[in-house]
């Protein structure tokens, strides 16, 4: 396979998962310190095909199949990163990443801090995230809140193929550890033209996807889809909703949210994870601290229930839906 970038050809329309592959390939071509590791990432190309073709192109010394142990993956990644490599590890599923928490919290998040900058940990941990694919238990976790309270980490979640490409490049180039959650429900949901030009998109900022004046819808991940659909439905009833994709949960760009709420006066937060102490709570607290006098309505949160995501028969009842978002928006808009 030619190593030449596809930048010379007309850029293709690709899915989110293909955008991941494209970003990995670009960065591996241009930075020899980038290696990919995880279970089944080599010949199999990853269970979601995120690393499809990379082993054939770059060889087994750049694309490593690991033994079946998440602790091993996390520990080797931290070890390599702290010795000057840029490992991009894959956790096979969100529900399997818990043994990695030790290395992420105790070492990745602390390496720079502990050694006063002498050592650092420029790693990326890619995690297929969230529900909605009718999977067995432990394959549908929305567990971002575990990490958003840990100093020293970045927590990032793209919601489109273009943002997946650009933000993954940014994450790999970031000198500090990034947990990169990929909403698996939208891995193949649609295609977008994404030029393979190596342009990173900024982390640490929200993406305003839609302009509006009556309320601000704040969300991330796969729920961006439902939130945009809800905005459409609201528009038909004359309610103009601004839609913000948080994109980087940590560190949070609250300024964009505050600016929007100062205009609209109402905020509805949408997330898949369970309600209590979900990341929406942090945004709601910030709104109470800093946007109190801009708000004309209580903050609404449309979230998963405080229960484990059920198996697929009830799964869609657990997840936020367009109807639930529209109802919350209307409750907010009833206040003036």
């Amino acid at each position, binding site marked *: 396979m030619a190593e030449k970038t596809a930048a010379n050809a007309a850029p293709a329309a690709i899915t989110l998962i293909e955008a991941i592959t494209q970003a990995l390939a670009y960065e591996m071509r241009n930075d020899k310190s980038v290696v990919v590791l995880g279970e089944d990432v080599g010949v199999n190309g990853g269970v979601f095909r995120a690393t499809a073709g990379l082993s054939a192109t770059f060889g087994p010394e750049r694309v490593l199949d690991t033994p079946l142990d998440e602790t*091993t993956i996390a*520990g080797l990644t931290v070890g390599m990163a702290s010795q000057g490599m840029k490992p991009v590890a894959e956790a096979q599923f969100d529900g399997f990443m818990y043994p990695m928490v030790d290395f992420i919290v*105790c*070492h990745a998040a602390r390496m720079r*801090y502990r050694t*006063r900058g002498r050592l650092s940990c420029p790693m990326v941990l890619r995690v297929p995230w969230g529900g909605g694919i009718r999977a067995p238990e432990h394959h549908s976790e929305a567990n971002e809140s575990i990490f958003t309270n840990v100093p020293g980490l970045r927590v990032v979640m793209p919601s489109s193929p273009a943002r997946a490409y650009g933000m993954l490049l940014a994450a790999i180039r970031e000198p500090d550890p990034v947990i990169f959650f990929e909403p698996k429900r939208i891995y193949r949901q649609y295609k977008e033209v994404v030029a393979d030009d190596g342009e990173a998109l900024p982390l640490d900022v929200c993406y305003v996807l839609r302009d509006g004046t009556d309320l601000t819808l704040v969300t991330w991940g796969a729920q961006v889809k439902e939130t945009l659909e809800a905005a459409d439905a609201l528009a038909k009833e004359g309610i103009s909703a601004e839609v913000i994709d948080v994109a980087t949960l940590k560190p949070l760009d609250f300024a964009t949210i505050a600016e929007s709420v100062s205009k609209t006066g109402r905020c509805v937060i949408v997330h898949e994870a369970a309600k209590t102490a979900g990341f929406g709570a942090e945004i709601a607290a910030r709104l109470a601290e800093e946007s109190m006098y801009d708000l004309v309505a209580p903050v609404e949160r449309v979230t998963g229930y405080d229960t484990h995501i059920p198996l697929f028969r009830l799964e869609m009842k657990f997840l936020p839906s367009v109807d639930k978002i529209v109802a919350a928006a209307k409750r907010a808009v009833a206040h003036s």
Partner: protein
Amino acid sequence: MTIAAHFDIEYLQYLGPDGKLVADLPKGFDPKSLLPLFKQMLFVRVFDTKSIALQRTGKLGTYAACLGHEATHVGIGSSMRPEDVFAPSYREYGAQFMRGVQPREVLMYWGGDERGNDFQIPRNDYPWCVPISTQCLMAAGAALAFKLRKEPRIAVACCGDGGSSKTDFYAAVNSAGAYKLPLVLCVINNGWAISVPRSAQTGAETLAQKGIAGGLHCLQVDGNDLIAVLEAMRRAGERARNGEGGSVIEFMTYRLHDHTTADDARRYRGEDEVKAGWTREPMLRLRTFLTAKKLWDEAQEKAWLEECGKLVDVEINAYLESKVQPVEAMFDYLYADPPPDLLAQRAAAIALEKRNG
């Protein structure tokens, strides 16, 4: 009956507890080479003693003493090259001093200051590691980096007998075998994991043989015999550098002090055992051996100990005179690119500090 696999664990010992050789010296081994290392071991003991005293007089936080481990530690450290990487647990000062870590850095760490981890000389070595045995797996990662980059460097990690029970240790063993890594795992078996004796840790007959499960070379040595330590490290280092893969070395020694200064070992082990430990301690036998070879005597020791005292005091004073980091040091090493919210908190902390004088 067909045997699918079998293993033997070799035990190395050259110098017995009484200072007499129990086996022929390794080929080409020069006893004179032991002298500078013996002196280093004495320095470590002086440092260790003074550090305990510092803690007991309220000048140091909790401290993990290395009393009795000097041969193992100094032997491991002296067997490494500058370009190698060392991953300690939190006790191996003797090894770290050989690598260029300064005593004042050890004191800063136990004295509650992160700057202790900012080693001035071994810039790539890992800092002290509290989550048990995770250093073994990180060292495996480092070894993997060396292998992928085709660098002639090895990684050496130390853990205790308790540490060999940990998931991360097994993960390191397995990774080292799966990837044939240039890794040396040093299991320093000092008999106790705080209050839990070695016998309660595992059903395995030796700790060294845990490496067999990963396909590594395994060796058990008398960790109080510096010659055995050096020979074991020489073999493992050579294998690693020749691309023959990783090793597990179990160093048999004894923890002559408490687990840390916050521990009281009398709660769980008897005085007789400790007394017996002292009869096997590394300094005694090496002193006897070197004195018999006319390489050492009482007068030299007295003079050297005095000089060690002075050197250690310089380090202690440097630590005691160091100023507390400014409050913003809490914020300055989280991200290369700190986000605005964090900078706002940093500013608030500085302002609060100013107001409080």
